C-alpha cells in the first residue's frame, strides 16, 4: 500500500467540493450542479482506485487505517479504517451520490425554497459524513458522524421537500436524535466501563472489542446502541418516521436517506452491537428476531395497503430492513454476509425505485397511485426500468437482491427454523406489493392526464438509472467481488460474538452448534 492516505482523501474530497460549490457565484445554478457532479464523480473514482488496492484476503482487518489524536482528554482519535463491510458500504454511498445528483438535476430549481448550490453542498457534506460514519474506527467518531449527518438531511428534507416537509423533517430529526442521545448515554457508559477495565478510557474500536464487560452492564449499553440503530434502520415499531420523511423529501434525498443513511442502523448493529456486546446480543436475539420477522410481514402488508407511491416504497424498505436485521441476529455467516450484501443491494434497488417513481411523480404532479395507469403505453422505457427495479426489490433470482435475501433466509433458517419460515412468507408479499404497484401505475388504460403529462425518460435520466440497473443485474450473477471482501469481515464479527455456524445433519463435522 502506498503512503498516500486514500481514506482521508476520500473523506475530505466531498467536503472540499462542498466548499467549492458554495463559492460558486449566486445564480449560477447550473455551474453549481456541474461542480457538484464532477466532485461526486471524482470521489467515486477515488473509491474505485482505493478499492482496487484493498486486499480481500485481509478484509477482516481494517485497511487504509490511520489515526490522529483528536480529543486526547477523552481518548478520542480521528481514526478511520475499512474492513470489507465498511468498504462496500462506502462504495455504495459514493456511487449513489453522482446518480442522485444527476437524476435530481431539475428537482431543485430557482423556485425552490433553498438555493440550488445549497442543495448540492448539503449533499456533498452528507456524502462526507456517510463516508465518515462507515469508515470510523473510533466509536466516538462514529457517533459524531451518526448525529452530524442528521443535520444535512434535515435541511434537505425541510427546505427542498414536499407539502408536509416541516412535519416530516422535524419528526425525522427528533426521532433520530432521541435514539442518538440514548446511544450517547451508552457511549459514555462504554467509555467509563473501558476506563474501569483498561485503566484509561478509550473509544478505539479494536481495543473495545473483546473487552470483558459485566453482563448486566452490557445489556444496558447494548440497549442504548440498539434502540438508536433500530430507530435509524428502522425496525418496527420505530419506523413511522420513515414513510413521512421519504415521501416528503425529493427523490434524491429519499435515496440517500433510505439507501444509505438507514444502513447506518443495520451496519451499527453488525459492527457495534454484536462485536462490542456479544453476550448482550445473544441475550437480545429472540426479541430482535421477533421484531425483524414482524417487520418483514408488517412492512410488506402496509406497503400493499398504501395509496401513495413514495410511501409504498418506504414501507417496502421497512420490510427489507426486517430481513437485514434478521440476518444479522441469526448469528450465522450466511445471515450476516447476506445482510451486508442486502444493505448494498437494497441501496441500489431502492435508489432505482425512488428515482424512477420520482420521475413519474414529477411528470404527473401527483403521488397518488390511483392517478396513474397505463404508463407503459406512453413511457415504455420508464415502465421497463421501474419493473426491473421493482423485481430487484422483490428479490427476483438473477437480480442482486435475491442472493442476499436467500442468504439471509438460509442463514436464519439454519439456526432459527421458524423465523426463517415466517420470513420466507415475506417473499410472497413482496411480489404482491411490487406487482400491484406496477399493475396500478403502469398497465391498463392510461387516463388523459397521464397521456398528456407523462413522457418517456430523457437522456440524462437514463444515464442516471442505467448504472443502477447494470449493478443490480451484474451483482445478481456475479456477487463475488462483494462476497470476497465481506466474508472475511463477517468471519471476524462471528469470532467476536463467539458464534459458529450450525453443522449440517449429514456430511459436515458434528459440531456444537445444533439445529434448533
Amino acid at each position: 500500500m502506498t503512503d498516500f492516505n486514500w481514506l482521508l482523501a476520500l473523506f475530505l474530497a466531498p467536503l472540499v467540493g462542498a466548499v467549492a460549490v458554495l463559492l460558486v457565484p449566486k445564480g449560477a445554478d447550473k455551474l453549481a450542479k456541474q461542480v457538484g457532479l464532477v466532485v461526486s464523480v471524482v470521489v467515486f473514482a477515488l473509491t474505485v482506485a482505493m478499492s482496487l488496492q484493498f486486499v480481500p484476503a485481509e478484509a477482516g482487518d481494517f485497511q487504509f487505517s490511520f489515526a490522529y489524536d483528536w480529543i486526547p482528554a477523552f481518548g478520542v482519535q480521528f481514526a478511520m479504517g475499512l474492513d470489507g463491510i465498511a468498504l462496500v458500504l462506502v462504495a455504495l454511498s459514493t456511487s449513489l451520490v453522482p446518480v442522485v445528483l444527476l437524476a435530481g438535476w431539475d428537482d431543485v430549481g430557482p423556485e425552490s425554497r433553498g438555493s440550488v448550490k445549497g442543495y448540492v453542498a448539503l449533499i456533498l457534506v452528507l456524502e462526507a459524513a456517510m463516508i465518515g460514519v462507515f469508515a470510523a474506527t473510533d466509536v466516538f467518531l462514529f457517533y459524531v458522524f451518526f448525529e452530524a449527518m442528521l443535520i444535512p438531511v434535515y435541511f434537505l428534507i425541510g427546505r427542498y421537500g414536499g407539502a408536509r416537509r416541516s412535519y416530516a423533517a422535524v419528526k425525522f430529526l427528533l426521532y433520530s436524535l432521541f435514539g442518538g442521545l440514548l446511544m450517547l448515554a451508552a457511549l459514555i457508559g462504554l467509555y467509563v466501563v473501558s476506563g474501569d477495565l483498561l485503566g484509561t478510557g478509550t473509544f478505539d474500536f479494536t481495543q473495545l472489542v473483546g473487552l470483558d464487560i459485566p453482563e448486566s452492564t452490557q445489556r444496558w449499553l447494548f440497549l442504548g446502541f440498539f434502540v438508536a440503530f433500530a430507530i435509524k434502520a428502522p425496525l418496527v415499531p420505530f419506523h413511522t418516521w420513515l414513510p413521512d420523511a421519504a415521501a416528503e423529501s425529493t427523490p434524491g434525498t429519499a435515496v440517500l436517506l433510505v439507501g444509505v443513511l438507514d444502513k447506518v442502523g443495520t451496519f451499527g448493529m453488525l459492527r457495534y452491537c454484536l462485536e462490542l456486546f456479544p453476550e448482550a446480543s445473544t441475550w437480545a436475539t429472540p426479541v430482535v428476531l421477533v421484531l425483524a420477522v414482524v417487520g418483514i410481514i408488517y412492512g410488506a402488508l402496509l406497503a400493499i395497503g398504501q395509496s401513495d407511491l413514495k410511501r409504498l416504497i418506504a414501507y417496502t424498505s421497512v420490510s427489507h430492513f426486517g430481513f437485514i436485521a434478521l440476518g444479522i441476529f441469526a448469528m450465522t455467516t450466511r445471515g450476516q454476509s447476506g445482510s451486508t450484501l442486502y444493505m448494498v443491494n437494497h441501496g441500489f434497488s431502492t435508489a432505482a425505485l425512488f428515482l424512477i417513481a420520482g420521475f413519474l411523480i414529477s411528470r404527473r404532479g401527483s403521488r397518488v397511485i390511483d392517478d396513474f395507469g397505463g404508463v407503459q403505453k406512453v413511457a415504455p422505457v420508464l415502465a421497463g426500468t421501474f419493473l426491473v427495479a421493482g423485481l430487484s426489490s422483490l428479490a427476483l433470482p438473477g437480480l442482486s437482491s435475491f442472493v442476499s435475501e436467500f442468504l439471509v433466509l438460509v442463514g436464519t433458517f439454519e439456526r432459527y427454523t421458524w423465523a426463517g419460515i415466517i420470513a420466507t412468507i415475506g417473499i410472497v408479499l413482496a411480489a404482491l406489493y411490487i406487482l400491484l404497484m406496477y399493475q396500478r401505475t403502469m398497465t391498463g388504460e392510461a387516463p388523459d392526464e397521464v397521456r398528456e403529462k407523462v413522457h418517456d425518460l430523457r437522456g440524462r435520466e437514463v444515464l442516471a438509472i442505467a448504472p443502477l440497473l447494470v449493478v443490480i443485474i451484474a451483482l445478481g450473477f456475479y456477487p463475488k467481488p462483494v462476497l470476497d471482501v465481506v466474508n472475511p469481515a463477517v468471519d471476524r464479527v462471528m469470532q467476536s460474538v463467539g458464534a459458529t455456524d450450525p453443522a449440517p445433519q449429514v456430511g459436515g463435522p458434528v459440531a456444537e452448534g445444533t439445529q434448533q
Partner: protein
Amino acid sequence: MSPFSGAVASVAEPSSAVSEASGVFGLTWLLIALPLLGAAVLLLGGRRTNPWGHWLGVLMAAGSFAVAVVLFAGMLGLGEEERSIRQFLFDWVFVGTFEAPVALRLDQLSMTFVLLITGVGTLIHIYSVGYMSHDPDRRRFFGYLNLFVASMLLLVLADNYLLLYVGWEGVGLASYLLIGFWYYKSSAAVAAKKAFVVNRVGDVGLSLAIMLMFVTFGSVTFEGVLDNAAAASDSSLTWIGLALLLGAAGKSAQFPLQSWLLDAMEGPTPVSALIHAATMVTAGVYLIVRSADIFNLSETARTAVIVIGGITLVMGAIIGSAKDDIKKALAGSTMSQIGYMILAAGLGTVGYVFAIFHLVMHGFFKADMFLGAGSVMHGMNDQVNMRRFGLLRTVMVTTWITFGIGWLAILGVPPFSGFFSKDKIIEAAFSVNAVAGWVTLLGAGITAFYMTRLFAMTFHGKKRWTDDVHPHESPWIMMGPVAVLALLSAVAGLALGPTGLFERWLEPVTGFTEPTPPVAPAVISIAALVLVLIGAGIAWVTYARNPVPEVAPAGNLLTRAARADLYGDAVNEAVFMRPGQYLTRWLVWFDNRVVDGAVNGTAATIGGLSGRLRRLQTGFTRSYALSMLGGAALVAAVLVLVRL
C-alpha cells in the same frame, strides 16, 4: 406393506459419476447464452430492432436448438454411464460452507428437456412470426420469448438447486411478462400478476426445500444433496419432499395452486402453447424427477405427490369439460395432463420415466393443439367462444387435420403418441395403488369426453359463427410448425415407447423399475380404450350430432362449479384476498393511528403538559417567592431524608 410402497422395492443406485465438460460439451453454456443474447438485444435495442427483431429471436432459438442437437449427438457417442456432464462457469454465491457456483449439468434428463424446449420453442417462435405479424410490439414479444427459452434452459441445466431457482423464477418472470403482454387490457395485467404471485407461493416451498437441503446436507448441489440422501433422517427427507412438492404445485398449476393457469390464457396463444402447455408448467415434474433420490426415500412425500396429482388430474378434467372458451378448455386439459405426470412422478421409480415420457409427448400434442387453437382464433377475429364456432373443418382444413391428430393423441388412441405414454402411467399407477390406478383410468375417460367436446364444437356440427367473421386458413409460416408438431404427436410415441428407447435413455438418471400391474397390461389398455370410446362417444353425440346452443345453458351443479373453476378463485378470494384486504386496511389504520399515534401522541402529551404547566408561571413575584420557599423546604427535606 403400505399401499404406496411398490416402487421402493429396489432403490435406484445413485446417479452415475459426473464428469467435467470437455470437447463439444464445452458449448453447453451456449444453449443459454444464445437466447439470452437475443433477449438482451431485443429488449435493450428498442425500436431500432423492430424490422428484424423477430427473425433474430427465431435465429437465437434455432441456434440453441442446433447446439442442442450437436450436444445430443455428442452424448449418444458416450457410454450410458458417462452421459452426466458438468460445466463449471464461475463462482456465484459462496459464504462459509455454502457454495452455489454457476455450473451446468447436462445429462439424459436435462438433454431431453433441452431438446423439447429448444425444438418446440423454435417451432413456436416461427409460428409467432406469423401470429404476431400485426402486433406493433412484436419485437418485444420475441424478446420475452427468448428470455423465456434462456430461463427454461437454465432451469433444466442448473447443477444446483439455487441456480435452478434462478431459472425457475426466470420462467416465472417471462410468463408474467407474456401473460401481461397486452398490458393495456386490465384483465391481462391482473392475470399476469396473479400468475406470478401464486407462483411465488410455490417458490416459498422451493426456497424452504433448498434451505432444508442445506441444513440437512450442508450443500445445495445435486451431487451434494442427492448422493447423500440415504444418510439423512426420514423426517428431513419428507419435509424436503413436501416443500419441493409445494414448489412444483405452484409452477405446474397443481392443486391447490392451480388457479392462475386458466387466467394465464390472457396471453397471446403461442405463449399458452409454449409456456403454459409444453414447457414451463412441466417444470414441477422436472423438479420432482430430478429429486428422485429424495422421493425414493420418503413414502409420505411420494404419497402426497400422488394425491396432489390425482386431485388435479380430476379437477382439470372437470373444468375442461365445462369451459366454452377454447383456450380455457385446453388449459383445463393441461392441468389435468400435468396431474397425470405429477401422479406418475409420485409413483417412484416405476413412474419417473413415464412421467417424463408423457411430458414430452404432451409437449408435442398440446403445443400442436394450442397452436391449432391459435390458428382458429386467427381466422375467427380472435374469438374464443366455442359456441360460436362449428364446422370449421370446411374452411380450415389444415388446422382441422393437425388438430385432429393432436386430439387422437391426447385421447390415447393407438398408435398416436398419447396412447403409449398415458397407458404406461395407468399401468404404473395400478402397480402401486389401485385407487391411483382407477383415478388415472377414469381420467382417461373424462379426457376423451372434454377433448372430443372441444374438437366437435370447433370443427364439426353446425356453423354458429357471428356475422362479422370470415374464417380462413392461416398462412404457411404458422401452419408449418403446427404440421411438424402434429407429425411428432403422431409418430414420436410409437418410435420411443414400444421400443423401450426412452426408458433405457433415462434410466441412468432416474432409475427404472418395470411396472407390475395386478392384471395384464393388455387388460388395462383395453379398459382404457373402452372408457375413451365411451367418453368420446357421449361428447360426439352431444356436441357434433345435436345442435349446440349459442348461449350456454344453465347446466347442472357440477357444470356450474366447473365453469367457476371449481370455485378455486372463490375460495382464494374468501380465504386470502378478502381477509387480506381487510387486514392491510386495518394495519394501515393501525400504523397511522396506533403506532404513529403513539409517537405523535407522546409529543402531543408533552406539549399539552407544557401548555398547562406554563400557567404555574403566574407572573406574581410573591408566588415565585413562595415556590422558592417550597424549594428550600425540598432541599432541606432531601438533605434530611438522606440522613435517615
